[in-house]
């Protein structure tokens, strides 16, 4: 069995499962955020359930601090729900950050676990060897009430990346390269598993970026076999015990894709699909905004990559750069390392953790015709604002280099100029 098959089999109490089989499986954690929470709470009340599973996590991140009265009401409903059912795992403003970063930082995500979240990028925890996947609000409520959910066992695709990455090439570029190759529905309903020397050499933050964007290829999950990088990260962090799960030698894969890391450059996904990928060096487009943040690339390692480029430089006068560390602890670490100072000296605007601009919610929304280079994961029509605005996806180093020149720029070209 593959990793996804094994995790589902274990949680369904079966000795084996096969692709396309539908199983009822026990879930380890269920998470909702402030947007998907409200509909889930309403549905939960309809069940008249006598209890809620202990492993419920509530995270305020999309529209907080509240952008208007409606979002304030929404956030309030989460507070009230947390109070009524005595849910300790409630991360409100000032204590948390972007939901997926919190799920990882606070030790909810761990190898071998089956985790669902009412947010599509729940697949991020695959980087720690979990099977985690996005679900809807009603089924999140159902999972909170019963501790179980139905799953269709996915087919698994194997992705092998070998070799050494070039300078400024990050996890983001690997996943953009893969999506550019297989397309936005290249892994529809499937589990992606990542292998190879390049993946093994990546720091955890880059692996999380890869798993985070599995959904951008349509996948159910994107799993990386856990190793010491994961076990060390989880020391003194993980809640409870966990058991790593690995694929059998004789696993059956739907397909295998092989890539040479040396051929992967810093990449940019042009509007309006993450599959519209070109090397950053081959695109020359003026930008109005540069955004560094999100569950894709808002970690301390991403802040470092951008600060390295911005240090001693200024953001181009015609560009607004917005920096949003993905969580309270990323923010604190960036302060300690004086990265926030680097950003502010460069004239970037730094804000506390929120999803805000990433989904065109508030705080960084684009006007008609404006273009943004962004470290996020989606460049759909109107994703960050006006329907005629444009989002270009890239890694944090490319975002920083582009902020400096005012045009989409490969950081390697910045050095030589």
């Amino acid at each position, binding site marked *: 069995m593959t990793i996804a098959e094994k995790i589902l089999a274990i949680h369904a109490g079966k000795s084996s499962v096969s692709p396309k089989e539908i199983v009822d499986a026990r879930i380890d954690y269920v998470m909702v955020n402030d947007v*998907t929470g409200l509909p889930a709470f309403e549905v939960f009340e309809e069940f008249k359930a006598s209890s809620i599973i202990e492993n419920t996590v509530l995270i305020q991140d999309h529209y907080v601090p509240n952008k208007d009265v409606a979002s304030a009401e929404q956030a309030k409903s989460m507070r009230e729900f947390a109070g009524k059912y005595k849910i300790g795992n409630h991360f409100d403003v000032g204590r948390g950050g972007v939901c997926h970063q919190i799920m990882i930082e606070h030790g909810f995500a761990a190898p071998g676990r089956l985790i669902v979240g009412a947010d599509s990028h729940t697949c991020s925890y695959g980087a720690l060897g979990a099977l985690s996947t996005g679900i*809807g609000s009603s089924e999140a409520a159902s999972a909170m009430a019963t501790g179980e959910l139905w799953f269709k066992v996915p087919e698994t695709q194997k992705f092998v990346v070998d070799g050494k990455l070039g300078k400024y090439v990050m996890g983001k570029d690997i996943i953009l390269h893969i999506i550019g190759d297989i397309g936005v529905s290249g892994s529809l309903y499937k589990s992606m598993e990542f292998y190879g020397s390049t993946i093994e050499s990546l720091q955890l933050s880059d692996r999380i970026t890869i798993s985070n964007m599995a959904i951008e290829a349509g996948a159910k999950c994107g799993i990386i076999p856990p190793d010491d990088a994961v076990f060390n990260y989880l020391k003194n962090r993980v809640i409870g015990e966990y058991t790593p799960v690995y694929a059998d030698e004789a696993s059956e894969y739907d397909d295998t894709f092989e890539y040479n890391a040396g051929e992967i450059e810093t990449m940019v996904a042009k509007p309006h699909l993450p599959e519209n990928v070109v090397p950053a060096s081959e695109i020359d487009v003026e930008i109005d905004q540069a955004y560094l943040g999100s569950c894709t690339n808002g970690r301390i390692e991403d802040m470092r990559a951008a600060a390295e480029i911005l240090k001693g430089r200024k953001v181009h006068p015609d560009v607004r750069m917005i920096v949003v560390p993905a969580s309270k602890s990323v923010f604190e670490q960036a302060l300690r390392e004086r990265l926030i100072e680097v950003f502010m000296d460069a004239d970037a605007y730094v804000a506390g953790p929120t999803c805000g601009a990433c989904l065109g919610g508030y705080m960084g929304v684009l006007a008609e015709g404006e273009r943004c280079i962004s470290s996020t994961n989606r460049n759909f029509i109107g994703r960050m604002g006006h329907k005629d605005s444009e989002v270009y996806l890239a890694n944090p180093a490319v975002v920083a280099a582009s902020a400096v020149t005012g045009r989409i720029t490969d950081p390697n070209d910045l050095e030589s100029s």
Partner: protein
Amino acid sequence: MVEKCIKGRVWKFSDNVDTDQIIPAKYLVTGDRRELAKHAFENVRPEFADDVREGDIIVGGKNFGSGSSREHAPRALLGAGITCVIAPSFARIFYRNSINIGLPLVECDVDAEDGNVLAVDFEDGKIVNADTGDVYTFPPLPDFLMKLLDVGLIENTKRKLKGTNG
């Protein structure tokens, strides 16, 4: 109960219709179907909310419903009176959400234009385009999902809770 046979007017969409197109993020401050329906497809088909009629059908391209997990998307379509979405493939969370809240989906590659009338028979797995006369077949949903669609996730969960709680 979901009807076994429906007939409706087509709204045609292309490939990769994402949930941001179905319902833009700025309206995600309510879970109410009718309220959400007022803004369905606002950025890409501004006339949709006003012109859509009870019983209409959406025919999409591949990977329909990609993007965010927002259940608000199928809720907005139900609120608009859509009775079925037909597409060669669906994004998986949209698929789950739709079945769970009782919006039937059909995986089938159908040639149809805006305004064509389609008849869909869920049990027999048959679609007829009344304007062109073309007939299409599709494998009906697996039993488990058919039942879920029929009963609805909420009722299904209630039954389960009763069962386990004695």
